[in-house]
């Protein structure tokens, strides 16, 4: 062979290239195959788990269905209690406010009339002498108004006058 000729057929390169391709390809295949098997196994395990949960769910539902009446009773009780709680939380306390106002009226006064709703309460009281009015207006009324539970926002003296039997005072309690 001359010096300037190249013998391609005798080159050892293909054998080396073949080995270079085969080994990593095989290794990658093994890794991917193992990963695939692992993932498939995991999916199978999960599916079995899901199927078991579905079975449990059906079994429990069946047991609950057998006690449908008891379940309905509990649900009705819960629903009624929720309604009752809502009513108790939002209903007015007109009776409480009126009772508190009446209790504040001195014993020697007579209550001529009370008219009330959830917005305001009008009270008419009378007495033989003027003596009790001062302490009632100066002490009892402010104490009532300061009681936040009663929700009194304003107290107005509508009229005060002398009648044949004594003195008559009309008050209006405005509620929040």
């Amino acid at each position, binding site marked *: 062979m001359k010096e300037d000729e190249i013998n391609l057929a005798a080159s050892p390169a293909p054998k080396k290239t073949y080995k270079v391709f085969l080994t990593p390809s095989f290794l990658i295949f093994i890794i*991917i*195959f193992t990963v695939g098997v692992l993932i498939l196994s995991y*999916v199978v395990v999960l599916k079995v788990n899901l199927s078991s949960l579905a079975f449990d*769910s059906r079994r*429990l539902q069946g047991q609950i269905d057998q006690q449908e009446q008891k379940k309905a009773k509990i649900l009705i009780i819960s629903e009624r209690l929720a309604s009752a709680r809502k009513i108790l939380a939002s209903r007015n306390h007109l009776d409480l406010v009126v009772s508190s106002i009446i209790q504040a009226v001195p014993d020697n006064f007579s209550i001529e009339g009370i008219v009330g709703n959830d917005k305001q309460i009008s009270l008419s009281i009378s007495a033989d002498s003027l003596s009790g009015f001062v302490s009632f207006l100066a002490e009892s009324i402010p104490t009532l108004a300061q009681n936040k539970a009663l929700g009194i926002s304003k107290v107005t003296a509508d009229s005060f006058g002398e009648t044949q039997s004594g003195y008559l005072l009309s008050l209006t309690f405005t509620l929040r």
Partner: protein
Amino acid sequence: MDTKHSFDITKYKKFIVPVAINMATVFIIVVIILPQFSILGDTLSQIKTQKEKVSDLNSTLSTIVSAQDLTLDSSLTSSTRAVPTGKDVSLIFSALSKAAAASGTELGEFSLTVGGIFGRAAQIAPGVGSTPSIVVSASVKGGDVKSLIQFSSELQKLLPLSQINRLNVSGDTASFEISFFYKPLDELKISKQQRVAPLSQADLNLLSQLKEWEQ
């Protein structure tokens, strides 16, 4: 020329195995592994839902099993007496009579507007807290002003639950406008409800209060 060509094929035959292996690898990735991620996601999500469902069902079953029939019946009576499912005039009359007896007064005339009995007309405008009510006008006689006011206080401690809307006390007579609450039972909603939670301590306290007012 033929010899040369045959030589080339022999040379590339050696690469068939690694190429086939690579193709199998790609096949495993594309056809087997990648779709599993989507299946995995769906399955995990389904498992989570099922676990929650089983947990709810377990809790429901436990609540149902632990509830005693006698207590349940008594609680049902008290709670439906507090908020009746319909316009029960006899319960209202009973409450008014009891309040009058407890306050030492006498129940005079009373009237109520029953309104619709069945169908859309039966859906009366809601009262307090979106709960429908039946409005009753009652007159009470006897005793003094304090007794007449006590009538309204006594009524607040009786069932069905009520609210005094207006009062007018003059001398030994008083007139009251009272709302008695009721709420129709939504049977469809109840039958659809899957989860049954046990009564909370607040529920038990309220139930105890209602039982006290039921006496």
